């Protein structure tokens, strides 16, 4: 199971070697999804490929009469650099998480790029938090150093990760791919554009971009409405995962 790779297609010629792969698949608070969608729509991304999600019946997305794969790769140009964004209109079933993670790291390995995996970390008191904290974790100390140098994030020190992000970290070790996780305090079961705005701000600082965040916050209510159906399906998916682990502390006796 953990060794299988989901089928994927991407136009290698249209993807820049070394361009960071921003993974924003639907999980807690749809933070990754909102972040990826916002960056792609703000900067006018081109669809350059897709990953087929195994264990799903046949599904296509229709948008403005165009037939699209639900889980797509976008190439985005921003201030003389390129990014590759991974976005999905449907949640990844737990059974497909390993193979999707393997595809992500294989793509990153092919173009010799780091993966920046963005998402939410459940925070029960999110409603009382005006400015959610962003935590970073990496398998590469240089990436952590660069992230901490932004003065905008904290190191993720103790806890558990579950789902696609955990699978990406494990898969990356096998392919020698550098991964940076950026996780922001978020509502668990409600779309959280406010949390996504913090991630965009962090990415701006990390990658030297200046994507405005104000329009994202202005559209927050409309985005929450548009993402409602996806949130419901994602929550149903998350209920099959040990998501509560992300609120727990590891025993921590042995390193």
């Amino acid at each position, binding site marked *: 199971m953990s060794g299988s790779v989901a089928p994927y297609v991407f136009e290698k010629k249209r993807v820049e070697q070394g361009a960071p792969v921003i993974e924003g698949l639907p999980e807690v608070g749809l933070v990754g999804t909102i972040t990826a969608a916002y960056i792609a729509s703000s900067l006018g991304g081109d669809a350059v490929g897709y990953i087929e999600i195994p264990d799903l019946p046949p599904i296509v997305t229709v948008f403005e009469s165009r037939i699209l794969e639900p889980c797509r790769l976008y190439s985005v140009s921003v201030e003389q650099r390129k990014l590759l964004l991974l976005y999905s209109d449907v949640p990844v079933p737990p059974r497909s998480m390993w193979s999707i993670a393997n595809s992500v790291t294989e793509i990153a390995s092919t173009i010799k790029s780091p993966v920046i995996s963005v998402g939410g970390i459940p925070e*029960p008191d999110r*409603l009382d938090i005006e400015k959610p904290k962003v935590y970073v974790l990496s398998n590469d100390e240089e990436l952590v150093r660069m992230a901490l140098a932004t003065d905008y994030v904290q190191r993720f020190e103790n806890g558990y990760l579950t789902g696609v992000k955990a699978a990406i970290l494990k898969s990356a070790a096998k392919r020698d791919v550098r991964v940076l996780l950026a996780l922001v305090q978020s*509502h668990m*079961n*409600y*779309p959280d554009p*406010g949390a996504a705005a913090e991630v965009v701000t962090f990415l701006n600082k990390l990658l030297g971009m200046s994507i405005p965040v104000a329009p994202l916050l202005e559209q*927050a*209510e*409309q985005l*929450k*409405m*548009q993402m*409602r*159906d996806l*949130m*419901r*399906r994602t*929550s*149903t998916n998350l209920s099959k995962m040990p998501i509560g682990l992300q609120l727990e502390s590891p025993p921590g006796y042995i390193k």
Partner: protein
Amino acid sequence: MVREMEEAFEEEVENMLTHLKELELSSRCLEPFYELFEKPEEYILRMDIPGADRDKIEVRGRGRIISIYAPCNYSVPYRDGVRTCATCYRLEVELPADASWEGARQRYKEGVLEIRIPRSVKEYRIKIE
């Protein structure tokens, strides 16, 4: 065997999601996502109702049932470009027996409605001798 059970469960969930969506589309009334937390001194009911008209949110308690009605302007892109609309959120939740309406309070922030309902049975502290 496990795979068959998983598939049967997924089929049930899919049926439930389809039924819920059909109901929402035909009634134009949305059932909000909600969470109920239990704390020693109160219950916290939280729900996501983006686009609700803050001044027209109605929260009523009757017996153990709490009802929420919130008119909203909900519209998203849909098939022929026409937008599907819902006119309200509606939710009824049965609370545990010790929920007390007296002192209940609510706030609406960033599309999330939070209602705090005190518990009537106080805890007694027993000293250790």
